[in-house]
């Protein structure tokens, strides 16, 4: 079966150029960067060049501002615990729609004696910067608001929020795992103090990430017992992946204008096509302040996992912002935060487009998806047949074929 991948927000394939850049470090240049001999120095040099490249890709002032981690989650954990343990303040602010790596970690802090404020969002998933301002207290140690939401794609006004934090003298962290390499980021222009990212979201390898930490910010290390990463993160470095991530990022930034055009075109075509063909659906997230490849739609009366499974049987890989892979219990906190009711939240599917998607892919989805939705609605005890949204999709007998 020809398979169509539309889950680039979950992970992206490793691009060839990045793999090529990695290969020497998976083979002959195998030294441990901490070793002082030739093998070690060779690895160290390449790793430090990659670090410098990442620093310059995000507009950091100095390569030493980049701490390499094993994933985006670790970067988020390090930012939050690292800052909170260092500065002795008791209050942390985050949003209601953060990735679990942030929000679950903040919840744990809240259990361990810290206090947390969760800023709500509007129906589009936007955080109001003024709400952040009002939540800041004298004992606020950190504000952590994500850059782009992984489920609904909404892009937050982090520049404004960073400005408010600066004014108030509070450190600002942003989870840019979904945005780095996809929309322009310059840490100094934004005014972010800390910024998380993960290689596998921009065609780099899976299992590597990083945290930008502005010079002067101290950070209690979370992984201890090694002098690596200037004593801020112990453990022998994944040299090959660091190099792969740097390469992928460099290329993502170079190609960003073309890529954005490509993705937004496909995205808008897909959204329009689905709305034309399937009644009673709802686009989640902001109409324009949105990741270029993100399409998150709620399909009333049906549940997300069964949609995904049917898409998968048709060779289409997507993901659900509702049911998760590990059990259909609570629906997504993000979808609940934008005000969806439980059924609707459970009936949401995220299609996240990427570099290798084509117009043909979109057409294929538009061809098979209406039938899948119709079949599952037919099966749903919640579904009461409505009249057809668009006459042109109804067959002669007058019953709406998309509901069959």
């Amino acid at each position, binding site marked *: 079966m020809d398979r169509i991948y539309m889950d680039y927000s979950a992970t992206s394939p490793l691009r060839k150029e990045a793999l090529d850049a990695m290969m020497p470090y998976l083979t002959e240049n195998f030294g441990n960067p901490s070793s002082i001999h030739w093998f070690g120095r060779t690895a160290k040099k390449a790793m430090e060049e990659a670090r410098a490249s990442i620093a310059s890709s995000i507009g950091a002032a100095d390569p030493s501002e980049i701490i390499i981690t094993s994933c985006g989650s670790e970067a988020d954990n390090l930012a939050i615990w690292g800052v909170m343990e260092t500065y002795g303040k008791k209050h942390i602010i985050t949003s209601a729609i953060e990735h679990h790596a942030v929000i679950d970690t903040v919840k744990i802090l809240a259990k361990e004696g810290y206090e947390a404020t969760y800023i709500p969002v509007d129906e589009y998933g936007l955080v109001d910067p003024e709400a952040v301002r009002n939540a800041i207290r004298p004992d606020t140690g950190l504000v952590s608001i994500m850059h782009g939401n992984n489920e609904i794609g909404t892009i937050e006004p982090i520049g404004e929020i960073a400005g408010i934090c600066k004014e108030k003298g509070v450190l600002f962290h942003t989870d840019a795992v979904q945005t780095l390499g996809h929309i322009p980021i310059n840490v100094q222009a934004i005014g972010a103090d800390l910024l998380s990212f993960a290689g596998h979201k921009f065609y780099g390898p899976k299992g590597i990430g990083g945290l930008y930490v502005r010079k002067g910010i101290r950070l209690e290390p979370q992984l201890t017992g090694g002098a690596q990463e200037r004593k801020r993160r112990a453990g022998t470095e994944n040299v090959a992946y660091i190099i792969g991530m740097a390469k992928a990022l460099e290329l993502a930034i170079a190609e960003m204008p073309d890529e954005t055009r490509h993705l937004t075109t496909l995205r808008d075509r897909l959204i329009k096509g689905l709305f034309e063909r399937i009644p009673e659906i709802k686009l989640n997230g902001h109409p324009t302040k949105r990741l270029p490849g993100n399409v998150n739609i709620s399909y009333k009366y049906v549940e997300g996992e069964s949609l995904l499974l049917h898409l998968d049987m048709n060779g289409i890989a997507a993901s659900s912002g509702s049911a998760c892979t590990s059990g259909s219990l609570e629906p997504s906190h993000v979808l609940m935060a934008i005000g969806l*009711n439980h059924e609707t939240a459970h009936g949401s599917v995220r299609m996240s487009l990427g570099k290798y998607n084509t117009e043909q892919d979109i057409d294929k989805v538009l061809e098979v998806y209406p039938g899948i939705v119709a079949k599952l609605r037919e099966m749903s005890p919640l579904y009461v047949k409505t009249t057809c949204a668009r006459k042109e999709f109804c067959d002669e007998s007058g019953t709406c074929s998309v509901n069959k």
Partner: protein
Amino acid sequence: MYTDIVMDHLTNPRNMGEIENADGIGQIGNPVCGDIMRITIRVKDGVLEDIKFKTFGCGAAIATSSIVTQMMHGKTIKEALALTNKHVAEELGGLPTNKLHCSNLAADALHLAIKDYLTKNPGAVEGVDPANIIVKDDHDEEQGPSCGSI
């Protein structure tokens, strides 16, 4: 994740739909968990002459509903009451652990349908008192692994 049997029932659900003027209707689940099942039955001489299901839910919810209608077609009320959710999961070749509690409720839905039938037709089946058919819709209290988004 799912066995081939589950996938088969998901692709080709058996006895999908609703019996008009059914002798009994059972519904279980709630939208918070994302699983709602409705089973309708036609009974003749203490035998399930027809069973149909409608399900809003994940793959496991659909497959358990579908296979229950298939397993119990033509069975007696007593046999149907002996069926457990565990049997259903076994018949499907197993379900992911986290689906066992929240999505495996089709036997319960069937029992509710039978209860409904017996309540409306007291004494229809000898020795079975509908008041003794107790289905605890407590799956939303169950602690399954929660989700991680990616």
